[in-house]
């Protein structure tokens, strides 16, 4: 499973990092979120789907083929 954060949409609301703290990190410069690794670690898929569903900006895409 792959995960991606669209930096043009991300507003740094931090919800993804709340829901899946092992998967998303917040940038020290602009506060935007990005995946620690675009390949989601095994066992964290549900969390990542949850994070994607929680993003108010719909900035997180999840898929087999993305990015």
């Amino acid at each position: 499973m792959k995960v991606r954060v669209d930096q043009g949409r991300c507003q740094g609301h931090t919800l993804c990092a709340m829901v899946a703290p092992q998967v998303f990190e917040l940038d020290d410069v602009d506060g935007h979120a990005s995946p620690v690794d675009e390949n989601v670690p095994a066992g964290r898929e549900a969390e990542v789907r949850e994070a994607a569903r929680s993003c108010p900006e719909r900035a997180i895409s999840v898929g087999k083929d993305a990015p």
Partner: protein
Amino acid sequence: MSDRKKNRYHFDRHTPQYRHDFEEVTREMQERCPIAWSDTHGGHWVAAGNREVFELAARSAGVISNDHDVTGERRGYQGISIPAPTRAGKGGFLEMDPPEQRHYRQALNPYLSPAAVARWIPVVDDVVRACIDEKIEEGRIDFVEDLANIVPAVLTMAMMGIPLRNWDIYNEPAHAVIYTPPNSPDLARVGRLHEEMRRDLAGQLAEIKANPRPGLVNALLNLEIDGERPSDEDLLGSLHLLIGGGFDTTTALTAHAIEWLGENPAERERLSRERDTLLDSATEEFVRYYTPVVGGGRTFSADCEVVGTRFEEGERLWLSWAMANRDPSVFPDPDEIDLAREGNRHTGFGLGVHRCIGSNVARTVFKRMIVQVLDRMPDYVCEPEGTVHYETVGVINGMRFLPATFTPGPRLGPGLDETLESLQRTCDEQRLADPVTRRGTKP
């Protein structure tokens, strides 16, 4: 009585009783009715459970509105205050919905990002140093009036691009409009102070429009939404929002934390000793436990069903960040302060598209104040008889006075006025109020 509203609770957060019984009310609502209907203030829903608050605040953007339709052009929604405020006027972008709201956030984010805030640390440290120097030889301080009111106010001025010395025009009204009850004999005086602040802010807006200088005011002046500039009224609403968000909230957090650390000297000593590992988690824990902004009002913009309750368009909702932060299903021992609490998914900055835009500022200013207090007055003792909390916690869980004594020490530099004069030059010369983006500073 409609079946939808079978979970009922008499909820009035504007009474002193609610402040007094907060933990009991929270427990009762979370056990019996994490979403309840209350007939108070014209009738409204209350979300008290963490999961309910999360689902409604973060995941229901399509059916929840912050709109404050002051001119009656749309559906007459009343914004984020319950009951609706008597004073007309929209509360800036906090009382707007996306996509309009998103334009404001995008314009302001680069001024409030972690990197932008980090650049202000030397200024913050010098203001804190000067505030403490004013009191250090005396061995007496009021942590609210002499420190926690001043530092957030000065930094907010600086970030906005308003002269630092003007903090005093904004300071008292920014706090007093929150804590002064509607029946207070002091209301007329507070109204005059507030008017003075409004006049100064409108003057700053005009001045910066004519002679641009960096800062949040300038960011809003350059804002275009679909090719159009927002009205001055909308800009002023947003500037008042930045002041409201920048002042009373951080004051409330800092004062409460200092009070608690004074009551728990062993924890204070531990925090000081282990600050490198403990200060971050302690900061989040104080935000969770004290939740300075206790909640926010919303309006359902469509009929919907969320977490098992059906809501109708037009109904009002109170999202309680404060109660969600005490939910035992998310926070073990929720009514205890654990400075090392892990996985602290608190709602203290709100949730969703309206989440606090100044959270990085708040955290930084708080930490810089705490660290210098720990270093320079490590043995302070607060005086409970002179300590004054806000009588009600309907809007902000704040404090008015926190007097304390401590072993006097030496001054380290000039007093506040002189410090602000030299810091003003620093701000101007280094253009500290410029935005910072991923690609560096934007002129």
